[in-house]
């Protein structure tokens, strides 16, 4: 019996959804365990960094990494995994393109921390405690000081491939069990796709598998843009043709149009297609194209554009961190993080 492939699974800035998707494989999970050995998986088992360090270089067959790179710790861990692994896969939208946490790149780190720890209405933080690199805790009872070191945040959130070399991507927020399963099958078959490929999903955009594609009028032209929280979509009619900002046309298929089945426009978690270099740029181009006004009706055009309060959040919901303009320009070195605090 030949040795089973060794799999490592690590999480960075993740919400836990990707891990859930693994569990969602349900009974297929058993087949996975049959096929592979899991050598590192902090979400499920207590592995330590030393455990990985001890492994010979290149001994892990596949490392699946989900979540964006937000902390120094993430950076160090993924670099380590890269060294130890033959194949590194960016698992899920955060790892592939930054994901929703990547939208924090619209703010510099100080702004983001202030927002997170001070301004958010659900936060109560009268002492204005913010993360600190090192905390020295005095323990008078023991007459000693304990040192706690917190991993330092990076100035911006980075997708995995801006930190290490990535072999493959599995898209989705999170990837659907089917997409994950397809990807696993493809990888385990030994018939490896070319490097950089997005595996498990479709090569066409979502419209291809969307049942509403057939309901499109001949020409997709709209007079206004609508938001699902403000307007009610008509059932069984292409959402884009109704004016909803559906990202389906620019988004890789493979999810079987789950959101659309729930009458919600696609928000783009499967990311861009081959040949597209900037997801949001492309989205702008087609949203600009379907707005059916000539330039003389200048005001109508502005009105339609102004009716959407957060364009960047819409067109880069999952991919800002990997966009050509991946963060707000003019970001300064953060000042709010103190080196040492003693309490």
């Amino acid at each position, binding site marked *: 019996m030949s040795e089973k492939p060794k799999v490592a699974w690590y999480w960075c800035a993740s919400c836990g959804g990707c891990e859930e998707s693994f569990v969602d494989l349900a009974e297929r999970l058993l087949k996975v365990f049959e096929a592979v050995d899991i050598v590192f998986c902090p979400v499920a088992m207590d592995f330590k960094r030393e455990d990985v360090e001890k492994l010979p270089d290149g001994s892990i067959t596949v490392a699946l990494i989900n979540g964006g790179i937000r902390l120094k710790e993430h950076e160090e861990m993924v670099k380590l995994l890269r060294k130890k692994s033959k194949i590194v896969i960016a698992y899920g939208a955060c790892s592939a393109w930054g994901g929703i946490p990547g939208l924090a790149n619209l703010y510099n780190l100080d702004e983001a921390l202030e927002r997170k720890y001070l301004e958010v209405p659900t936060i109560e933080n009268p002492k204005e405690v913010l993360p600190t690199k090192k905390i020295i805790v005095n323990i008078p009872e023991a007459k000693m000081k304990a040192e706690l070191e917190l991993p330092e945040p990076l100035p911006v959130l980075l997708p995995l491939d801006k930190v290490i070399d990535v072999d493959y991507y599995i898209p989705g927020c999170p990837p659907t069990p089917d997409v994950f399963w397809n990807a696993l099958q493809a990888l385990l078959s030994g018939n490896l796709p070319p490097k950089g490929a997005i595996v498990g999903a479709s090569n066409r955009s979502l419209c291809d598998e969307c049942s509403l594609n057939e309901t499109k009028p001949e020409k997709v032209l709209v007079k206004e843009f609508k938001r699902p929280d403000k307007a009610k979509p008509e059932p069984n009619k292409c959402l884009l043709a109704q004016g909803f900002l559906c990202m389906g046309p620019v988004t890789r298929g493979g999810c079987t149009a789950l959101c659309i089945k729930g009458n919600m426009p696609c928000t783009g978690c499967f990311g861009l297609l081959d040949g597209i270099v900037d997801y949001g740029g*492309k989205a702008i181009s087609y*949203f*600009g194209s379907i707005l059916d006004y000539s330039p003389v009706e200048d005001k109508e055009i502005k009105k339609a554009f102004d009716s959407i309060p957060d*364009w960047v959040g819409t067109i880069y919901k999952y991919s800002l961190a990997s966009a050509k*303009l991946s963060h707000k320009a003019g970001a300064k070195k953060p000042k709010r993080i103190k080196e040492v605090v003693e309490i």
Partner: protein
Amino acid sequence: MSETKGEFEPKIVVYACNWCTYAATDLAGTSRMSYPPNVRIIRVMCSGRIDPQFVLQAFADGADGVIVAGCHPPADCHYIEGNYKAYRRFELFRKLLETMGIEQERFRLEWISAAEASRWVQVVNEMVTQVKKLGPLKPNLEVRE
């Protein structure tokens, strides 16, 4: 951006439609007009061909400014209404630039007819002056040390 003799020389990428603006840039040449050498012109058939992705690529690669130029609305467009489409796409594109903190002066959508060589020269002069004042864009984009 290229640095020679210490002074900041911005690099400006221009996407020009074949029939109007590119013709104007040619006319500026044949008329021996003079303008700063900071522009690099990329020819497309119609301003309606210009994809915001190109502009983003240019900024990401180090352009300090970008000009997208086509035929005057309403009727100059060789392809009926490509300029309308460019207008709509790049009006929306401006919102992206604004959110991403890129100064509006770094991006211009211009209508320059085949006869308006002097307008072309004026646009280049203005753009170069403005962008020089703003300074290079790239360092602003580099947050990792």
